């Protein structure tokens, strides 16, 4: 049974059909990416999975119907989203943002997890009392990922983590993502940077105007002439 199983997902904004009945699955422990051009429906897909958008179709998470749960019930099930544009709480401090990540938890390992995050992301440790709005884009992305990890997710959805970052920072962010995956967190990644996404993940889906047009292993997609022509600039 896949960890996440999506069947005939459809998202509409008014008259516009952003996602047109796509189906995909993510197995436990996998790193899967959803690549495609701007406006292909990648972000809408992730938001629909996180129940932030009304959508038609069926979504199963560990066999449970996801599409009947409110958004705020998901993290308790182990599903976290790092949103597009990072979505840190600008007027809360770094430490408070991280604490928000553990909002649904009541166990006594929160402080230990916080130290683990600070050890993994030392830039955040240095800035823990600073307001998140004063951080650089890369630091905010790290914070958004750290905040999601504070919820101890089993499935982490990442929406365009490389967006607007300098190349060196992109490398660092992806290093963190690989690190998280190595700890056993399943990852569904949405990226415009197709090359980087395919080099990082095991499997990929290509989205084009609301539909999945290709689905294969990352290695095959990287070698596919259609992908090379459309997304890798060759």
């Amino acid at each position, binding site marked *: 049974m896949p960890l996440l199983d999506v069947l005939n997902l459809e998202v509409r904004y008014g008259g516009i059909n952003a996602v047109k009945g796509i189906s995909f699955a993510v197995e436990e422990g996998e790193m899967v990416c959803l690549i495609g051009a701007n406006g292909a429906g990648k972000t809408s897909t992730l938001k629909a999975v996180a129940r932030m958008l009304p959508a038609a179709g069926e979504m199963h998470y560990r066999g449970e119907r996801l599409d009947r749960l409110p*958004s*705020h019930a998901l993290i308790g099930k182990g599903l976290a989203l790092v949103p597009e544009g990072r979505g840190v*709480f600008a*007027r809360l401090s770094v430490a408070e943002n991280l604490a*928000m990540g553990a909002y649904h938890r009541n166990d006594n390992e929160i402080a230990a997890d916080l130290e683990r995050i600070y050890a993994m992301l030392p830039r955040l440790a240095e800035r823990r009392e600073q307001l998140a709005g004063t951080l650089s884009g890369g630091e905010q992305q790290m914070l958004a990922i750290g905040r999601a990890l504070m919820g101890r997710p089993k499935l982490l959805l990442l929406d365009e983590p490389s967006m607007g970052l300098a190349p060196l920072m992109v490398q660092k962010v992806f290093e963190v993502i690989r690190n998280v995956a190595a700890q056993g967190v399943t990852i569904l990644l949405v990226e415009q940077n197709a090359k980087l996404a395919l080099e990082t993940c095991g499997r990929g889906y290509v989205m084009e105007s609301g539909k999945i047009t290709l689905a294969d292993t990352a290695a095959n997609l990287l070698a596919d002439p259609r992908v090379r022509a459309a997304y890798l600039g060759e």
Partner: protein
Amino acid sequence: MDILLQQIFNGLTLGSIYALVALGYTMVYGIMGLINFAHGEVVMVGALVALSVMKPLAAAGLPGPLVVLVALLVAALVCMALGFTIERVAYRPLRNAPRLAPLITAIGVSIVLQQLAMLIWGRSYHAVPPLLPAESHEVLGAQITELQLIIMLVAALTMAGLILLVNRTKLGRAMRATAENPAIAGLMGVDANRIIALTFIIGSALAALAGVLVSANYGIAHYHMGFILGLKAFTAAVLGGIGNLAGAMVGGVLLGLIEALGAGYIGDLTGGILGSHYQDVFAFFVLIVVLIFRPSGLMGEKVSERA
């Protein structure tokens, strides 16, 4: 007698009450961008419920401060239930409606509450029994009553408590996160409906306290008292920067001072043409000036367009 100092004492008393009410406006605005014009009526309900509790208890000969405390507790519970119901019935169904709809609804709720209060408590002005110590003391040539001191102290302690709640607790953190971005806070497991309901409940408890204090200060309560008070507290919230807690407190105290000083000196300033009964003019003059010259208020953040 020192008129300046006297008016400052009066202004601080009045201002701390305005601040308590202004907090209710600013908390709701901060979290959902709604101006809850019915908030003033919650203050009125608090005052009248407390009065109804006070009369029989005082007649039974219980000590004054205890009677006030019990009355305050009952009034707070009634107002909390009222605030919760208002949000649930009047505002939640309009959460995603155009902004004008909940605003008009708020005015409707305000009228409904006023009329209900009129049916329950009648049209007359009720005298509030003087149950709190009101002895007057001379300070630097001006008179300050124990009642005034109590009002300022209770308001200050309550506001300090609120600041601690918002800045130092898990609930407060979730409130601030929801105010900033409810959808993202939802991803962390925050149920925005619950946070909004709690915001109304807390604001209504503050309103009940303000109602008890203001009716004790003036010695009267009536079904219409919430309207002008609410409008002034709204002015105070705008003056401080609506959405900003510290701003509401500063705005409230400042407005109280402006009003008291204005009332104290308007006779001299206009050569006796206008008397101190023009007190209310100052609040709305302040509102107009703030809206023209600094619409974001004294402590409000500049509203910037985000890309």
